[in-house]
């Protein structure tokens, strides 16, 4: 598969899910692991352009795919505006949820030019944050999407 633009080849056990592969085999520890059953969104990564739960996809299923993680999107500058807005709006405290939150938020930014707070909330409804509260996060995403908030 191609991870953040570089080709990688490994032999791995079938049961290894994609985030474990990224973290343990490739040392890409930006994608986090929370619940491992699809509920928290901390493990969100992009496969062939679509966001997915990294804990609900086997690494073997990503064979031949293009995988992008928070590290790749951050290095390429794609997330610059969101990162700046999260920082300015204090949209994180411990930061555990932040990589997944940014991946989900960027997915919305790519799909829509503008959108309502309601749509933003719906889009990140699958990402849990246990400390910040969601207002600041929605504010930050709104700032990037609508230039306000």
């Amino acid at each position, binding site marked *: 598969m191609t991870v953040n633009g570089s080709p990688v080849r490994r032999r791995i*056990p*079938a*049961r290894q*899910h994609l985030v*474990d592969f990224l973290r343990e085999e490739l040392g890409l520890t930006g994608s986090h692991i929370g619940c*491992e*059953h*699809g509920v928290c*969104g901390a493990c*969100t990564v992009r496969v062939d352009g*679509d*966001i*997915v*739960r990294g*804990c*609900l*996809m*086997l690494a*073997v*299923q990503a064979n031949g795919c293009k995988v992008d993680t928070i590290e790749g999107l951050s290095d390429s500058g794609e997330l610059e505006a969101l990162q700046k807005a999260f920082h300015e709006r204090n949209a994180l405290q411990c930061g555990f949820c932040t990589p997944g939150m940014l991946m*989900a938020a960027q*997915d919305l930014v790519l799909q829509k030019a503008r959108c309502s707070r309601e749509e933003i*909330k*719906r*889009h990140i*409804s*699958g*990402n849990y944050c246990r400390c910040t509260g969601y207002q600041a996060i929605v504010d930050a995403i709104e700032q990037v999407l609508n230039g306000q908030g």
Partner: protein
Amino acid sequence: MKAPSFAYARPGTLAEAFDLLERHGEGARILAGGQSLIPSLNMRLSSPELLVDITGLAGLSGIESLPKGLRIGALVTHAQIERSPEVKRHAPLLAQAAPHIAHPAIRNRGTLGGSLALADPAAEYPACAVALDATLVIAGKKGERRVKAGAFFKGLFETDLRPGEILAAAEFPPADKAVFVELARRHGDYAIIGLAGTQAASRKRFVFLGAGATPILAVNASKASSLEEAREVLGKDLDPPADLYHSSATKLHLARVLLERAWNKL
């Protein structure tokens, strides 16, 4: 938690898939989008020997117009259904239901076939399939058979699928009007209760999810000639099981609220 170990195969043809399923019998599980199966493996609720990944099989994907209605392949994802202009035009009930299923990252992988085959009593598509009187196309080693949605859902997580069979597609006849409504604690959570309503040739069909072990066609309410009558007789149609947070009476009350919302839109 981590999944127990298992083998993995990704057959390229249906014949190969049937072969694998037959050889491994009960030890084999079909893997589609994995959005229900992988959580259950991670939690060690099941421990198959072999996962047969069907996502490489041709013929199970794609959305196709029929002379009457729409055929949707088992591997079509919730996200594809949500975005498809054909679905919006020919099966708007499904287009309305899809955004209620989980969250965007899960909808990008979860499939129609997986949701129908799993038959979760709180899932959206099974109720939609019954409301639209869909026909499910099931592929087996000896060929194809077709089953009406109403007969496919047999019990809690129990369907008419036999060992070794693969759900290939579902065919949805058109309806004149359709409406999908549900109540959930938080957007994307499984519904507390939901309702798929259709009207075809001035006949209404109200099918509830989260109101029993399978989707439940409210026979009496569907025949009622006024909203008052429908609300009244719904008590004969439904005896919803209580869940952790809602008593049976609360659920029946919520079902009546949904019935009113749906009635006014049909």
